[in-house]
């Protein structure tokens, strides 16, 4: 009897199991990597579900199946083939949406300066005027940034290309783990990305030229569009239109079908973008805005959309000098006021009824969670912060029908945490992107891009030397541990200012960071990459504007 049952059971399994192991490649090959996940149906049960800011389901169930959210609620039937996750201690949020970033894009090599460069009229690609290009040509599925952002709960990113004045169009991608670029793409060609970044040593070199060039391009595009329309209706007797791809890229912007995402950190840059919008009439999104408090009233009743930067300034530290002069005390007080004003602009916008999403384009990944916590601590309501991460961002990007909330029918994007997200110490245990599950180890400290050992190798001071053609430039690198993440700064013995290291990363013995400074109105970026062995570093500093690399070495100062 038992034998028969056993055989029966085995027989059923033998039929059912292979069906469960369906891989996309139905050529009867067994999956040799063993990577194919057994199911695309998940049920998180008994969890606190935050469907949208302010909409909470206690002890509910979310079912994600075949890439979509199939059910959310308290009376949900759990499908038989679901992987059941006990959510009794867990909190589920809609997957976060990044309003604008470079996530997934690889920075292209710098164009070499042509020997016969005619500075007043350089080729468009050298000047960085390539609005016809798409970020998709820069997206690399193996980019670290996809995984780094996903780990923080981001499931969708509006990624824009690297470049100068008009690098190209942005695309909305899923921060999933896929084989090819197009598997990640949710929507392409969704925006015209632009910034105040001039051509290296050529026209337009700075803001003056950039503003004029924008007006010229837009107006020329408008006329060219009229010309093409006329020609298309009946070409007889009409000059053949010139096919200028840069101008053609403006046509959907002129038709208001494609918005312009202007990267504007400062108030002055934002005002210049607004001035262009007023004159020319395109749809504008001020992106990565850091000085919004100047413009609250102007933005309140306008159709300009906003993405606030998540890059908060460091909290100012007062000097502990007992002989501190009154002047220094006053300066410190004003600096603190400026810091508080920066933090409070997020609530101010919320109270003024200005909806905004977040842009992480200028923010170091490691700082994102901490910055969100700081915002909430300074008075921003959790609902407002969550809206910026989810519903507002979805609406701004035009994907609110498929993302931003945990509702049946929307994309299977979710973040599952061990405690309420904004609570200090809460960790992300699962992230669902496109209905695929990603699990993270919450037992130990969240791993950063730099391991503990890595930190120890770097922490402290290093004396560096840059072998430039004019001689050796020296100074110090100072690496410090700021609340668990590594930060770095470099000084100069030649009288230059101290500079922060951006995008600092140390993996497998390779140290890399970049810094930028203003050289006569143009922003110059220098990327340093090299290997650390023991107490020695040797690598190269590449200077984009002159497309050259120079050797740089450093020696650690013994503690």
């Amino acid at each position, binding site marked *: 009897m038992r034998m028969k049952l056993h055989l029966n059971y085995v027989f059923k399994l033998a039929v059912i199991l292979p069906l469960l192991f369906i891989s996309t490649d139905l050529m009867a090959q067994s999956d040799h990597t063993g990577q194919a996940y057994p199911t695309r149906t998940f049920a998180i049960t008994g969890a606190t579900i935050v469907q949208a800011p302010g909409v909470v389901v206690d002890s509910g169930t979310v079912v994600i199946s075949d890439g979509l959210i199939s059910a959310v609620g308290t009376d949900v039937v759990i499908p038989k083939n679901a992987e059941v996750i006990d959510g009794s201690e867990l909190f589920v949020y809609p997957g976060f949406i990044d309003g604008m970033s470079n996530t997934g894009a690889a920075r292209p090599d710098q164009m070499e300066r042509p020997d016969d460069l005619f500075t007043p009229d350089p080729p468009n690609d050298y000047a960085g005027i390539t609005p016809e290009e798409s970020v998709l040509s820069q997206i690399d599925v193996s980019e670290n940034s996809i995984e780094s952002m996903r780990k923080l709960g981001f499931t969708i990113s509006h990624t824009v290309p690297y470049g100068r004045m008009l690098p190209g169009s942005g695309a909305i991608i899923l921060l999933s783990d896929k084989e090819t670029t197009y598997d990640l793409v949710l929507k392409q060609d969704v925006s015209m990305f632009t910034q105040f970044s001039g051509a290296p040593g050529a026209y337009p*070199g700075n*803001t*003056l030229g950039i503003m*004029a060039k924008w007006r010229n391009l837009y107006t020329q595009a408008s*006329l060219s569009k009229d010309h093409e329309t006329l020609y298309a209706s009946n070409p007889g007797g009409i000059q053949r239109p010139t096919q200028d791809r840069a101008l053609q890229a403006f046509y959907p912007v002129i038709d208001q079908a494609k918005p312009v995402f202007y990267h504007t950190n400062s108030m002055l840059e934002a005002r210049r973008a607004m001035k262009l919008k007023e004159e020319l009439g395109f749809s504008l999104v001020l992106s990565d805005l850091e000085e919004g408090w100047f413009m609250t009233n102007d933005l309140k009743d306008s159709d300009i959309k906003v993405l606030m930067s998540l890059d908060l300034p460091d909290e100012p530290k007062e*000097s502990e000098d007992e002989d501190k002069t009154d002047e220094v005390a006053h*300066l410190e007080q004003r600096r603190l006021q400026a810091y508080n004003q920066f933090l409070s602009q997020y609530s101010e916008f919320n109270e003024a009824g200005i909806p905004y999403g977040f842009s992480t384009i200028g923010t170091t990944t490691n700082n994102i969670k901490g910055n969100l916590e700081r915002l909430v601590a300074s008075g921003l309501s959790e609902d407002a912060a969550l809206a910026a991460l989810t519903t507002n961002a979805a609406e701004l990007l035009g994907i609110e029908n498929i993302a931003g909330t945990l509702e049946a029918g929307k994309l299977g994007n979710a973040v599952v945490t061990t405690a309420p997200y904004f609570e200090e110490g809460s960790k992300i245990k699962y992230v669902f992107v496109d209905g695929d599950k990603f699990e993270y180890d919450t037992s130990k400290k969240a791993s950063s891009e730099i391991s503990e050992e890595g930190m120890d190798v770097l922490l402290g001071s290093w004396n560096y030397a840059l072998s*430039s053609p004019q001689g050796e430039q020296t100074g110090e690198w100072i690496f410090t541990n700021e609340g668990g993440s590594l930060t770095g700064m470099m000084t100069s013995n030649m009288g230059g200012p*101290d500079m922060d290291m951006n995008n600092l990363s140390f993996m497998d013995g390779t140290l890399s960071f970049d810094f930028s400074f203003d050289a006569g109105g143009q922003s*110059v970026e220098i990327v340093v990459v090299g290997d650390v062995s023991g107490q020695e570093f040797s690598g190269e500093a590449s200077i984009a504007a002159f497309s050259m690399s120079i050797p740089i070495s450093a020696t650690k100062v013994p503690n």
Partner: protein
Amino acid sequence: MRHSACRFQFLQLKCLIKMKRFDMKKLTFLIALLLIGTNVIMAQVPKGDVLIKNGTVITITDGTLENTDVLIQDGKISRIGTSLKNRNGVTEIDATGKFVMPGIIDAHSHIAGTSINEGTSQVTAEVQMGDVVNPLDISIYRALAGGVTSIHLLHGSANVIGGESETLKLRWGVTDPQDMMFEGAPRTIKFALGENPTRGGRSRGIQPQSRMGVEAMLRNSFKEAQIYKQKWDAYRADNSRRKVAPKYDRRMETLVDILEGEVLVHCHSYRADEIYMLLNVFSDFGIENLTFQHANEAYKVAPELAEFGAGASVFSDWWAYKLEVYYSTAYNAAILTNNGVTTSINSDSGELIRHLFHEAAKSQKYGGLSDEEALALITLNPAKQLGIDDRVGSIEEGKDADIALFEGHPLSSYAIPVMTFVDGVKYFDRENDAVDQRLSVDPEDTIEDVHIFDADEQHKCMQDAEITNLYDFLNK
């Protein structure tokens, strides 16, 4: 109100209104028409009501009036007289023992601008300083403390034909660049001759590399503009429905506007030969409105300048910093004035702007100009050169209340500016001068007790135009 807004109206509303100089009533009406279309909200600039009592009023145009009151209403000088009654109960300022003069106008300044030169091309008539106005620059306050109420924010002198400049009122405290504009001021543009553009050309391997090249580029540019205008005139005159517009170019549009007399040209120059060259070029192309900036050798061609009707905006006594500036004299301003040339004295510096009244006084020592002639160099004359003399530059009923109060006669070595008004609003008061005037503070500022170098005090005519080399990059 920028002419540029009209251009885009042309494309959208097919508006063919041309803005000629300058019938204020017609202009206001035209502006109102365009505003309905463009939804541009005119900046609501603050305007004040004040009664300045019992001062020595230096009117510039009508002599000096002792013990005289100036009544300001809604930002305008409404009455000048003795023992005026304060009927509306406005704030009273006791100016007994003080001198009341028109706010100083600096015709050559680079403060309050984020970028100064688009030096990558030698002809950039399409760029506008109005795009880079920075109302947060502390130099604005310092200028107010020197009795200055308006500045001419110039494009730098790296290019033969630079960008449009912007006339501004120093309304310290506003953060929207629009609120600093001198509303209704005519368009102006910057040209440059001599060593600055040729140095730029030589370092980039482009024209001009010599003074011959400068003249050639001027003539070529105007010729190209004439051809551009012909094409567009033909297009507009064409009644066919199937016509294709010629290529649009803002650079050419602005050059055409210069040819048509709608833009006042201010040209950086030093040597008499190049000054004379430009007079010839402008005569050939029929351009009449011209002011030479610096013009250290203008005294050599003063009669020719007067005959042409060109103005000169000069330094009081700064020279020999370049080869082309060697043959100069402190008598320049006086010689030009005596030859009938409209002359002003400017600062071209965030430091000099704070004591332009002393600079004007030097023309009394070097040239014996009268008090009125000397003060006109920093008030009415720069106003004329900027086309704003109907609004400012003297204390007359109906003009804007841009006024500076001095302790001691402004031309005295002991002069101290004590109050400065723009549109009747007090922006500087020595008695209430807070130490920290900054409008915006960087939350990541490093606070150090030592102050070594202030870049604002340098002359910025070539800023942003230098070819930076690696050494400069790494040592900035």
